[in-house]
C-alpha cells in the first residue's frame, strides 16, 4: 500500500468518529438545542461497546448497545433541557464531566485490553481497485461508510428535501411561530436531541471497536469538543461535516506521519495539531460569516422555549 493511500485511509478512519459525532450534534442544534455533552456521550458509547463485545463478541451488538445507552442518556439530557428548560450549556458540561467519570469507572476492568471483537473492513466491489483511493476509501469498516456516505445523505435529504425537515429547521429558527402553526415543538425537540445523542454514542463505539480498538480512560481525547466545533465550521450542513471530519482526520494522521518521516517538528507540537486546527477552523468561517448568512447558526440555538412568553 502506498504511503499516500494509507495516509488517506487513516484520515478517513480517524475522521469517521468526528463525522458521526458531528452529525448527531447537527440534529440537536438544528432543532435549537446546543448539546455540549458530546465528549461524555463518546466515552459512554465507547465503554458500553467494549463491555458488550467482551460479553457477546459481536461488534454490531456493541454498536447497538452504545446507541441504546446514548438514546437513554439523550432522553435524560432532553428532559432537563427541553422539558425542564434548564441551561443547555450547563447541562451539556454536566453530561460531559459526568459521562467521562462514569465511563472511567465502568471501564476499569477493560482498560488497556484489546477489544474482544472489532469491525472488519468491507470492500466495495470495483471501487476498491481504484489506484490510491481504492484501498484508502473503499476498504473500510461499516461505520465509516455510514459516517461519510449513508448518514450525510440521509440527513441532507431529511433536512433539505422533505417537509418534515423544513419543520425541524423552522423549530431551530423560530419555535414560537412553529408552535402557533400547530407543530409539536417540545416533542420534536425531545426526539431529535435523543436521536442526536444516540448517534454521538455510536461514534464512541466506532472509536473503541474500529479506530483504537480498545478502551482506556481519556481515549476520547477531546474529540467530542472537536465535533461541536466541526458543526459550526461546517455551517450546519451534513456534507460539510463529512468533509470537515476528513480534514481533521488528515491533520491528525499527518501529525504522526511527520514524526515517522522525521520532519524535525517537536512531537508535543504535532500532538497539538488537531486542536490548533480546531481554532483555525473556527476563525475561518467567522471571517466569512457576514458575506454568507446561510451558514450562520439557527436563530433559536441554545434558547429554551417558553410557550407562555411567546
Amino acid at each position, binding site marked *: 500500500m502506498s*504511503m499516500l493511500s*494509507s*495516509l488517506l485511509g*487513516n484520515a478517513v478512519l*480517524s475522521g469517521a468518529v468526528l463525522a458521526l459525532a458531528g452529525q448527531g450534534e447537527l440534529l440537536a442544534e438544528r432543532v435549537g438545542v446546543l448539546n455540549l455533552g458530546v465528549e461524555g456521550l463518546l466515552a459512554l458509547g465507547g465503554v458500553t461497546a467494549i463491555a458488550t463485545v467482551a460479553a457477546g463478541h459481536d461488534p454490531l451488538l456493541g454498536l447497538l448497545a452504545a446507541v441504546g445507552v446514548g438514546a437513554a442518556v439523550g432522553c435524560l439530557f432532553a428532559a432537563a433541557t427541553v422539558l425542564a428548560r434548564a441551561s443547555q450549556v450547563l447541562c451539556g458540561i454536566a453530561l460531559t464531566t459526568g459521562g467521562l467519570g462514569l465511563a472511567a469507572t465502568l471501564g*476499569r*476492568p*477493560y*482498560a*488497556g*485490553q*484489546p477489544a474482544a471483537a472489532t469491525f472488519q473492513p468491507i470492500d466495495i466491489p470495483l471501487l476498491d481497485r481504484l489506484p490510491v483511493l481504492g484501498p484508502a476509501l473503499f476498504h473500510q469498516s461499516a461505520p465509516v461508510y455510514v459516517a461519510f456516505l449513508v448518514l450525510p445523505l440521509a440527513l441532507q435529504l431529511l433536512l433539505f428535501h422533505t417537509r418534515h425537515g423544513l419543520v425541524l429547521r423552522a423549530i431551530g429558527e423560530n419555535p414560537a411561530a412553529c408552535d402557533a402553526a400547530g407543530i409539536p415543538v417540545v416533542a420534536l425537540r425531545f426526539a431529535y436531541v435523543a436521536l442526536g445523542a444516540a448517534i454521538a454514542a455510536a461514534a464512541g463505539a466506532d*472509536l473503541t471497536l474500529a*479506530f*483504537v*480498538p*480498545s478502551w*482506556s*480512560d*481519556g*481515549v476520547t*481525547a477531546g474529540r467530542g469538543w472537536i465535533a461541536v466545533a466541526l458543526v459550526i465550521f461546517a455551517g450546519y450542513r451534513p456534507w460539510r461535516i463529512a468533509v470537515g471530519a476528513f480534514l481533521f482526520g488528515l491533520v*491528525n*494522521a499527518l501529525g*504522526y*506521519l511527520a*514524526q*515517522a*518521516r*522525521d520532519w524535525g517538528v517537536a*512531537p*508535543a507540537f504535532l*500532538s497539538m495539531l488537531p486542536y490548533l486546527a480546531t481554532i483555525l477552523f473556527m476563525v475561518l468561517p467567522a471571517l466569512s460569516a457576514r458575506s454568507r448568512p446561510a451558514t450562520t447558526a439557527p436563530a433559536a440555538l441554545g434558547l429554551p422555549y417558553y410557550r407562555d412568553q411567546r
Partner: protein
Amino acid sequence: MLVAQGPGDREDMVSLGRRTLLAAAALPVLPRRVLAAAAFPAVAERDAVIAFGHIGPISDGGWTATHHAAVLAAKAAFPAAKFLEVESIPVSADATRTFRQFIENGANMVFATSEYGDLLSGVADDAPEVAFLECNGHRTADNESWYYVQHWMVSYVLGVASARMSRSGRLGFVGSFPVAAVYGCANAFLLGARSVAPAATCQVILINSWFDPQAASQAASALIQNGVDMIYTNLDDASVLQVAERAGIKCATWSTDMRRSGSNAYVSSLLLDWSPFVVGQVSRRLAGGWSAGPGTLLPVGHGVDRDRWGRTVPPDVGAMADAVRTRIIGGWNPFAGEIRDASGRIRVARGQSMDDAACDAWSWPVAGLTGLPA
C-alpha cells in the same frame, strides 16, 4: 497541612504527621538526614501498611500488570499486612496528593511503580520514617531509593532477532517521552540490530504518554505507512502489536507475553518480574534493618528477560539471539566502542564501553536512530 489535618486511620498516625510537620517547621535549616535514622526499625506484620502507586490501570496486560503481580506476591507472603494500591496516577500534582494520602493512611513503605521524580521526593522528604522505592527513579536519600532492570541488555538481544525478522532493515520504535529509559531501550535495540545488519535504521515516535492506546496505535500506523516492517515498543499496552498484526509486519513489546494480541506479528517481549525484589524489600522493612542504599538494577535472568520466541520466528533466528543472551549473562558487555551518535560524533571510543550507570542515563541517539532529540 493535609498530613496533619486529614482524618487518619489511626490516632497515632495523625499525631505522627503533626510531629513531623512541627519538626520540619522548627528546624528549617537542619539537613534532613540528621533527623532520619540510617536503618529502619521493625514493624509487626499485622500493623504494617505497604502502599503501591501505579502509572496505569492494573488491567493493561503490560507494565502495570507486572507490578500488580508483585503486589499479589507480597500479599501472599505477608497475609496479615495491609496493602494499598492506587491505579492510573497521572504525572502531576495529583501524584503528590496520592502519595501524601498513603502517608496519611499510615504507610510504612511506599512503592512508586513508575518515575514520578520530584512529585515523589517532596513527599519522601516530609516523611523520613517511611521507606520509599521508585521504579525507574534516579534519586537516593536516607529513606528513598530506586529499582529498575537492565532493559538495554534484553533490548539488544531483541534487536539481534528483529534485524533478521525485518526485510527492509527499517525498524521502528514507539516510545513515550524523551527520557533515559526510552533512549536506552531504542539505542540498545538498534545497536543489537546493527550487529547483524549494519545498515539497519530505526525511526522513533514519541506519544507523550506511557499508556494511551489511541495515540500508540496511530503512531504505529504512521511508522508502517513510512515503510517500517518491524516495530519495538516499550509502552504499557498491546495496541502497537495489534496494529502490526493487522498490517502484517513484526513487533516486539515490553512487560508481558502479549502474543494473544497478535500471534503472527509477535517476535518476543521484554518480560518483567518484580515479585522477588518487592517481596524481599517488604520482608526487610518488616523485619527491621531496611535501609535505602544505592539503587538496584535487576540483571538479565533475574527480573528481566526475553520471552519465548513468537511462532513466526525461525528457529535459527531465535538461536542466534539466544547465543547473544548467553554471552551477556556470562558477563559480556555489548555496549563497547566505537559507538557514534546520530550526528556522527564518537561518544564511546574504541577500547572503552558503557557501564550500567551510563546505559541507565543514556541521553543521546546512536547513529541510525532518528526521532529522538540529540
